[in-house]
């Protein structure tokens, strides 16, 4: 049963992250995703100090807002202080992450988080924290419920805003010309990334969030030329990695998050080498552009 809950948790995280990751990598913003996933840490610690729990809605919202603030901060450094774009990202997230780690050390007694957990989570403990109703009925791990709600919200967001997200990602100038606000959709996307990160953080840690934001979408991007298929394939790749990663971790007795990240890397390598259309080891006759 524990294996089931852990794999389910991993799959839910994988679903949210992979879906949003597709937009991030096509917008060339993979590293902004990386930055957000690190930068929410101080928000999580502070929210934890105030609410004293990990699962509360205020904590989710408070920490999620910090993620959005990160994008503003990067934007501010870049636009107003004129720091070079990549440096703005690097400075912002390392700084916020450092604050988070220091807060954890300072409030070690009050905060039930440790430095290592921040990096690779405690997915193995997910099944221990059960949600038990007043009547004594166990409804399964709390984290799964939180993640399920977040996953539903993310899917809803992508379904409802499908065409706007698609257009603003592909051709922002045209979108602006026909009156679709690129700013609104940019920040909506970043908000979604923040909340996903916060919800996933405690179970899988910062690194797995990055791995799932980047690797499954990159794998899918090598396998298909259809955007809807890319979304689906990356979710599949993410879920597969969660399951395979769990068993890999059990086998070598290591961190589950680390193992899942490793498997996403292997998936990418396979696609990179053997993708039917673009694998570098596949000598298939490619459809060449018609040259006039």
């Amino acid at each position, binding site marked *: 049963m524990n294996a089931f809950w852990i794999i389910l948790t991993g799959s839910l995280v994988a679903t949210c992250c992979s879906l949003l990751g597709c937009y991030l*990598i096509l917008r*060339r*913003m*993979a*590293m902004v*995703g*990386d930055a957000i996933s690190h930068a929410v840490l101080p928000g999580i610690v502070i929210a934890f100090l105030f609410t004293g729990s990990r699962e509360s809605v205020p904590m989710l919202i408070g920490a999620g807002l910090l993620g959005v603030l990160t994008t503003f901060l990067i934007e501010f*450094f870049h636009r*107003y*202080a*004129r*720091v*070079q774009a*990549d*440096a703005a*990202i*690097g*400075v912002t997230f*390392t*700084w916020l*992450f*450092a*604050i988070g*780690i*220091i807060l954890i*050390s300072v409030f*070690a007694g009050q905060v039930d988080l440790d*430095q*290592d957990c921040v*990096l*690779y989570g405690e997915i193995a403990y997910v099944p221990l924290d059960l949600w038990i109703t007043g009547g004594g009925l166990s409804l399964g791990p709390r984290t799964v419920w939180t993640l399920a709600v977040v996953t539903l919200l993310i899917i809803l967001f992508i379904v409802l805003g499908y065409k706007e997200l698609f257009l603003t990602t592909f051709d922002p100038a045209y979108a602006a010309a026909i009156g679709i606000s690129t700013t609104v959709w940019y920040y909506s996307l970043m908000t979604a990334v923040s909340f996903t990160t916060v919800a996933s953080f405690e179970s899988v840690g910062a*690194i*797995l969030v*990055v*791995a799932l*934001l*980047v*690797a499954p*979408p*990159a794998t899918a*991007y*090598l396998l298909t030329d259809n955007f809807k298929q890319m979304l689906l394939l990356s979710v599949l790749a993410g879920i597969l990695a969660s399951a395979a990663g769990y068993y*890999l*971790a059990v086998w*070598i*007795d*290591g*961190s589950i*998050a*680390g*193992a*899942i*990240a*490793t498997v*996403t*890397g292997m998936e*990418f390598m396979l696609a*990179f080498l053997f993708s039917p259309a*673009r694998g*570098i080891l596949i000598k298939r006759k490619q459809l060449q552009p018609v040259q006039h």
Partner: protein
Amino acid sequence: MNEFFEFFSFADANVRYVTLGSVLLAGSSAVVGCFTLLRKRALVGDAVAHAVLPGVCLAFILSGTKNPFILLLGAFITGWISLLTIDFITSRSRIKEDTAIGLVLSVFFGIGIILLTAIQHSGNAAQSGLDKFLFGKAASLVGEDLIAFSLVAVLLLVATLLFYKELTLLCFDQAYAKTIGYPVRALELLLTTLTVFAVVVGIQAVGVVLMAAMLITPAAAARFWTDRLSLMLVLAALIGAFSGVAGAFVSYTAPAMPTGPWIVLIVSMIATLSFAFAPGKGWVSRLLRQRRNKTLILEENLLKLLYQLGEQKQGTLAPHTFQEILERRAIPQKLARTGLRKLGNQGYIEKTPEGWLLTGQGQRRGERVVRLHRLWELYLTQYLHLASDHVHEDAETIEHIITPELEQKLMEELGFPVLDPHSARIP
């Protein structure tokens, strides 16, 4: 406070070593970071930093010891592989660079984590302390470790000095470097190697997770203080070294604290202050400059108004009341009063019982503004073919910015004109 003096008296040999080590480590990575920053590849350092973790773990598993040279070697190898992987993925597929960096970073780190946890769970007694690579611990920098890491740091600095000219050219103008026969590819490899080395030594102090900050942040901060590369390198090294010492101090006084985050926090504060307050490029100094421009515009406008009022009265120098000035142009009263007072203090105008009077100096300056205004209007109509009723607003700004050289040039191009497009005399 006692600890502070204890630490900075350097009486304890341990403290001396740790301080020296931190300075070398943080300083040398900051120097290399300048080059990666200028090549716009700052985040690549982040990927390398995360990628050294599996190397360290593998080296430990294979050798079974914590010999710093062996761990360094392992770190170096996987760090290098990560850079090659990023280049390979971007050149051989349609994956873009940011995705490749994120991918390599998280996957290598994932592999590192799984190895690290496997080692920890294996119950190997020798393993304790490997996890200090995650967040760094300057205080543990003693004996063999210190010698190894410092040696690499010194090598790094020497190599940077030796190839200073070549690396500079590579960063500023790669294409030009190629045309004049520099081995660009080899230089790229050199910089890559230096980056990996910088990461490998830096992680001892700050750990892999935050290593990116040691490469990026001091360089980004130094960039705000100077445009000269040599000075930028020195500043970045100083900023890095300072935060290194601060980290060592924290590590000394609070052994439970991870050093890395403190170093990063300090260096980030320095960077943020630089972004905000560095003279010239800083945000605040830009705001101040914009404010100064506003004051300049206000003062020159007042002088111009007084001059124009005089013009109406056939150039006689007569005083004008506050009302007269505001009637000609709506300036908020308060602003106008302060402006006039300041101009009075500077000796451009005098207050007489009948109103404000231009001094000789003020007369000349007001005249110049009016002249520039009309010259620019004429320039716009003649060279830009703007209608004469559209040129006024533009001239309202430009009149304040034209330098004497440009003024001379304008006069020449316009053939020393007498009248502006509205047939007003150009003084």
